[in-house]
C-alpha cells in the first residue's frame, strides 16, 4: 500500500481544453478518497492520469515514493475498476480474475490461491466457470472488483463502479465496498458524480469543478463547513437554500434579514466565523440546509431559542421518514455563477413551479409527523446555529478557515 500525491497536476487536451488545473492532492496510505463533482469537472481525467491511461500535461504524480509520470500503467502497481466493468467476454470468471496474475508470471499455485480467496470474499465461487454473459449486473460488478483485488496492488482506482447498477443493488454494493475497504485497507481513489456515494464511502472527499479543486475534507466537514457556494450547493440533498440577506446588528443583538424574515444570529456564530462581523450592515448570501428546518408542531417545544418563520407549503414530497416541504419566499433567487453550476448538475429535475422573478423556491426537510399538505400554511423553526454566510461577490464562505485572508 502506498500514498498517492498529486502536485500541480495539469491536463490539457488537444485543442486547448484544460480538464485539470493545478491539482494538488495527497491521498494518504490506506485512505478512501472520493473525487466528486459535476460531469466535466475533471475527476475522471484525474483518476486516469493516476492510472497512467492519460498523459500528464504538467506537474507530478507519485505513488509511494516513486514519481510515476512516465511509467506505463502496468508498472504502477495499481488496479482499476471500470464503470462498465470491462470484463473479457471470451474468458470465464476464473480466467478473468487470473489474467493479470498470469501476465505477471506468477506461479500457478499462487494464482489459484488468490483467485479462490477473492472469489470467496466476493461470493463468486459457484460462478468461476461461467462467462460474463451468463452473470447478472451485480455479479459482473463483483468480478470486476475481484480482478482488482487478486492483484493486491498499492492502490485501487474506481471509476464510477456502481453507476450501472440499479438503485437497490447500488446501496448494498456500497455497503460491501465499505466493508471491503475496512478489511483490505488498500488506498482507494473513487470517482463518482453521486454526492450520496461520496458522503457515505469517503474517508475524505475531494470536490472538483471545471478542473479546479474546490475543497478536500471529511464528508461531515464538507456538509457543515463548505468552503464556497459551489460546494454548499453541490453537497447535500436536497440542496442548500440560498437568499440574499442583510446582516444587521441592533439593540437586541445581531440578525440577518431577508424576504421579510428576520433571524437572530447567535454570538457563537461570530466567534465561529472570524471576519463575519466585518459584514455587519452589508449584504451577504445566506444559506440554510433543508435539514436545519423543522415543523414547529412536530418539534413541539424542543426548539427553544430557534427562529420561527411562517410559510405556505407549495409542494410536499413524502419520503416516509420525513417530508420535503417546498415553499417560496419573497426574495429573488440567488444567481451566483457557483449556485447555478452546482444546481445544474443535480440528478433532480428542475422543479417546475411557475415562479415570478422575485420569488425563490426553498426546501425544508421536516419530520413525517408534521402531516403538512400542499397549500397548507405551517410555521417552520430554524436552527440558527447552522446558518451559512457567503460573500456576494466571490461566493466564498465567510469565516471558513481556508478563506480567511483570501
Amino acid at each position, binding site marked *: 500500500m502506498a500514498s498517492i500525491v498529486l502536485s500541480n497536476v495539469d491536463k490539457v487536451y488537444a485543442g486547448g481544453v484544460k480538464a485539470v488545473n493545478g491539482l494538488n492532492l495527497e491521498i494518504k496510505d490506506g485512505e478512501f478518497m472520493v473525487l466528486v463533482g459535476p460531469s466535466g469537472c475533471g475527476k475522471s481525467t484525474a483518476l486516469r492520469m493516476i*492510472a497512467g491511461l492519460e498523459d500528464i500535461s504538467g506537474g507530478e504524480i507519485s505513488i509511494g515514493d516513486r514519481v510515476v509520470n512516465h511509467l*506505463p500503467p502496468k508498472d504502477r502497481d495499481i488496479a482499476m475498476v471500470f464503470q*462498465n466493468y*470491462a*470484463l*473479457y467476454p471470451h474468458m470465464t470468471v476464473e480466467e478473468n480474475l487470473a489474467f493479470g496474475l498470469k501476465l505477471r508470471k506468477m506461479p500457478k499455485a499462487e494464482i489459484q490461491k488468490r483467485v479462490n480467496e477473492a472469489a470467496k470474499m466476493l461470493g463468486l465461487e459457484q460462478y468461476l466457470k461461467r462467462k460474463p454473459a451468463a452473470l447478472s449486473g451485480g455479479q459482473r460488478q463483483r468480478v470486476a472488483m475481484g480482478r482488482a483485488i487478486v492483484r493486491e496492488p498499492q492502490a485501487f482506482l474506481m471509476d464510477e463502479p456502481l453507476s*450501472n447498477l440499479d438503485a437497490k443493488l447500488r446501496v448494498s454494493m456500497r455497503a460491501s465496498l465499505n466493508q471491503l475497504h475496512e478489511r483490505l485497507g488498500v488506498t482507494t481513489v473513487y470517482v463518482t458524480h453521486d454526492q450520496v456515494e461520496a458522503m457515505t464511502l469517503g474517508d475524505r472527499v475531494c470536490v472538483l469543478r471545471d478542473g479546479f479543486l474546490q475543497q478536500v475534507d471529511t464528508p461531515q466537514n464538507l456538509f457543515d463547513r463548505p468552503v464556497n457556494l459551489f460546494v454548499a450547493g453541490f453537497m447535500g440533498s436536497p440542496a442548500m437554500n440560498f437568499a440574499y440577506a442583510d446582516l444587521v446588528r441592533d439593540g437586541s443583538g445581531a440578525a440577518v434579514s431577508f424576504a421579510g424574515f428576520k433571524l437572530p444570529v447567535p454570538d457563537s456564530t461570530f466567534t465561529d466565523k472570524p471576519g463575519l462581523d466585518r459584514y455587519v450592515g452589508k449584504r451577504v448570501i445566506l444559506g440554510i440546509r433543508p435539514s436545519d428546518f423543522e415543523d414547529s408542531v412536530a418539534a413541539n417545544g424542543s426548539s427553544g431559542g430557534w427562529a420561527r418563520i411562517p410559510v405556505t407549503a407549495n409542494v410536499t414530497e413524502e419520503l416516509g421518514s420525513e417530508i420535503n416541504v417546498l415553499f417560496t419566499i419573497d426574495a429573488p433567487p440567488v444567481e451566483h455563477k457557483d449556485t447555478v453550476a452546482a444546481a445544474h448538475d443535480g440528478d433532480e429535475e428542475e422543479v417546475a413551479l411557475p415562479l415570478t422573478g422575485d420569488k425563490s423556491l426553498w426546501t425544508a426537510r421536516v419530520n413525517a409527523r408534521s402531516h403538512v399538505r400542499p397549500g397548507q400554511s405551517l410555521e417552520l423553526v430554524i436552527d440558527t446555529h447552522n446558518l451559512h454566510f457567503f460573500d456576494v461577490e466571490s461566493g466564498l464562505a465567510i469565516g471558513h478557515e481556508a478563506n480567511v485572508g483570501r
Partner: protein
Amino acid sequence: MAHEAVRIQRGPLGRLLERTGGGLVQVIMVLIALFWLIPTLGLLVVSLRDDAANNSSGWWTFFTKPAQLTFENYTNLLASGFTSSFWNTVLITVPATLLVIGISSMAGYAFAWIDFRGRDSLFLVVIALLVVPIQIALIPIAKLYGFLNIFGSIAGVVLFHVAFGLPFAIFLLRNFFVGIPRSLLEAARMDGAAEWRIFATVVFPLAKPAIASLGIFQFLWVWNDLLVALVYADTANQPMTKALQSQMRQFGTNIDILSSGAFLSLIIPLVLFFAFQRYFVQGLLAGSVK
C-alpha cells in the same frame, strides 16, 4: 382508428404474413433456395453421367433413369492431371487468405487503437484503394513481376491477391475493432498487457466473427478467381479455374472433365463455409461491459 393506421402502414405483405403465421414464408424461402440450387444440382448430375448420356439427353432425365449414374468422369479427371491444378489452387488460396487476415488484423488494430501521426489520412488512402479496379494494375504489375523474376509463379499470384485483398480487409477489421469498448483494452493494459498481448489475447479472440467472415470472403474470392490466374500463372502453376477454362474448345467441350472438375472446385468452399458458419451468427461481445 390507431389500430387501423398501424395495419395500413404494414402494407399488404405484412397483413398476409400476419394471417399465414409465417408458415407460408418458410415455404417460399425453401422454394427460392431450391430454385437457386438447380444449376448446382444439374452440375452434380452431369458430372455423374457418362458422355453418351450427356450428349443424348438432358440431366433432368436422371430422375426417371437413376441407374445411369457412374463415377467414370471423376476417374478420368484424376487421370488427366487435374489434381496438380487442384493443389495449385490450394497453394494460392491458403497463403493469400492467411496473409490477408494476419496483415489486415494487425493493421486494423493499429488504425483503430494506436495513436500515430497521420493515422487518419493514411486510413483515407486505404479507403481510396478500395475503388482501384484490378484491370488497371495488370500490366504494370506484370512488368514488375518480370523484373522480380516471379512472373508465372504461384508467389506472384498470391502477392497480387494479398495486395488487392488488403484494403477491404483493413477497412472491415478496423471498423470492427473500433466497436470494441475502449475500457476493455484499458483493463488489459492495467492488468499488465502490452500492445502485442492485448492484440493477441483480447482483441483477436473478440474479432473472431469478423475475421471468419473476412476469411470466407477472401478465400472464395481467390479460390474462384480466373482473371489473375490467367494473367500471372503459367501452365505448370495454373489453378483449377484456369485448368477448367483450358478445357473449353472452340468446337465443343470436354464436358466430362469440366463438370466433375467444376463440382470439385465447388465442394471445398462449401465445406469451409459450413465449418465456420457458427461464427457468423455469434455475438462474442455479449456480457463484456455493463
